[in-house]
């Protein structure tokens, strides 16, 4: 177990290092080097910036310096916001995005698992077909299109919910969270159904039935638990999907989160901000995948880790 965790941490560090390096290279390759063409900056700021990044020095030195700064949590300053430290800005905006993301994952997972269980048990009935149609739609329709139509119907046309403003209240959460969770519901429901069907066909389900315990107990104590374990594995991809979704959803609903900020920085060529956000997203994704892998090992008693190969 320890070796496995260490190995995974090793990969995590390597992956993150690769990402930081890639962003650095990307930055170097950016057309017209950002520091030359930023008309928004005063000459003093430009000089400060050049000095800060040591642009007069050879690239390898710049790279090491960049790594050194990043390692100390210093990601530079935003061009767009007068060199405000990126780290501060991210720290400010991250909680909003995290909130929405977690709400969407939790809501989506609960509904998705329930739908999947019901569909799996009632295989071949209209309930099954119904929930699978929902899940195909949820998987297929991009969240931003879904969001646009939610916004039109609930906010613009009927004005039941706020359109595109934000004060953090619950009613402001509803539409973005629903829009974000659609993909989660769809993916979890489909995965859960497949697992349920598979598990319900296992011999140990017959053993459980043969004991004479009630069908509800068979389903919940034996089938659901076993079916849910693999569902944990799609948490990683789902986090990626939520991050992707949040870029557009936050934009559509004018939510002051990281996704919105990221899109803005892309459109305004705020390179340090792009880099910082990229690295944050990468870290988020990598850590989620890591936690999922470890969780899986802990939850499934069958996986016994002996040695490095797991």
């Amino acid at each position: 177990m320890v070796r496995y965790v260490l190995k995974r941490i090793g990969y995590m560090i390597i992956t993150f290092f690769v990402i930081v390096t890639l962003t650095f290279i990307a930055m170097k390759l950016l057309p017209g080097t950002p520091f030359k063409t930023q008309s928004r900056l005063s000459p003093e700021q430009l000089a400060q910036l050049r000095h800060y990044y040591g642009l007069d020095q050879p690239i390898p030195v710049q790279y090491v310096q960049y790594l050194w700064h990043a390692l100390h949590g210093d990601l530079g300053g935003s061009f767009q916001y007068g060199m405000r430290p990126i780290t501060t800005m991210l720290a400010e905006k991250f909680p909003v995005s995290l909130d929405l993301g977690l709400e969407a994952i939790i809501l989506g997972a609960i509904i998705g698992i329930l739908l999947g269980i019901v569909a799996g048990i009632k295989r071949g009935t209209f309930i099954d077909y119904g929930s699978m149609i929902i899940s195909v739609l949820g998987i297929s329709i991009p969240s931003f299109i879904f969001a646009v139509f939610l916004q039109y119907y609930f906010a613009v046309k009927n004005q039941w919910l706020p359109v595109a403003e934000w004060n953090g209240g619950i009613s402001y959460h509803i539409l973005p969270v629903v829009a974000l969770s659609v993909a989660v519901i769809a993916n979890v429901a489909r995965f859960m159904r497949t697992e349920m069907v598979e598990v319900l066909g296992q011999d140990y389900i017959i053993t459980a039935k043969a004991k004479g315990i009630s069908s509800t107990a068979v389903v919940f104590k034996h089938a659901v638990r076993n079916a849910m374990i693999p569902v944990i594995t799609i948490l990683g991809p789902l986090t990626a999907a939520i991050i992707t979704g949040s870029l557009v959803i936050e934009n559509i609903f004018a939510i002051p989160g990281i996704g919105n900020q990221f899109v803005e920085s892309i459109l305004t060529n705020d390179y340090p901000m792009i880099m910082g956000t990229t690295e944050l997203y990468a870290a988020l994704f990598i850590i989620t995948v890591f936690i999922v892998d470890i969780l899986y090992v802990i939850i499934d008693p069958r996986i016994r880790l002996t040695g490095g190969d797991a």
Partner: protein
Amino acid sequence: MDNILELKDLHVSFDTFSGEVQAVRGVNLELKKGETLAIVGESGSGKSVTSKTIMGLIPKPPGKIKNGEILFEGKDLLKFSNKEMQRVRGKEISMIFQDPMTALNPTMKVGKQIMEGLIKHQNMSKSDAKKRAIELLELVGIPNPDARVDQYPHEFSGGMRQRVVIAIALACNPKVLIADEPTTALDVTIQAQILDLMKDLQDKTGTAIVLITHDLGVVANLAQKVAVMYGGKVVETGTVDEIFYNPKHPYTWGLLSSMPKLHDHSNKLLAIPGSPPDLSDPPKGCPFAARCPHAMKVCVDHMPGYFELSETQKSACWLVDERAPKVNPPETIGVRGE
């Protein structure tokens, strides 16, 4: 009659894409208290379906019970509601499965899997149930049961898992135990241990056993009565002695011939040529006619009734009819016990 379990004219079929498969076509069986009845036959003969039907574990749909009665202590189990059946399963009749590697829930401690039935049927508290689970593990010969009770199935070997499966089945002292090929998936040395265990437990508990198998060696070891199934029907029944020493049905002859024998030096394994009938379109006459070396015209279109050869032995074969030519069983069936 002190039959604890009696099957009367049981018909079970399954709806599949290629039509209705009649897996069990009119099976009659009787089981007395404390007795062991072996059901033998090759794959697809309907023996497993029969056993699952007794337990009420046939998924419906696609399965359906078209006809017949399953009398347990005189009451027809087929008329029981789902709730009533739950009270029978595990408590009155329980079951051991073929593959111990898949028959246990991989994510539940074995102790808990044993306790479930106890808590449900005997209203035991959790701690009492756990004590009983430990006793049961000890009873089925698992060393160090205090520690083992908190382990997961993957921490047990195949033979040990089968002992756990037996412990689960025996937890509530059932009156009937159905063992569906309990040793098929095990190593030969382990097979003997499990058989000994079952024999031993039967002596202690007096449980009646329905033993489903295709291994005649197992039958000789454990059973008092044998029912030979073929093509969804029981083609011959009798005591172990009758089936082994005086079989009348050519299929039984084939089964006995195909059993390897210790003192046979011909080095030849005898197989029954052909394969079992397609039960989605079962033959009108005797299901074995197509593979029977002694088949007569009558066999093709007319299903023979049971010829009672003795108090206990019945055979569904036209050869027993007095009009039929006299056919002697092949020598290859090997008279046992010499």
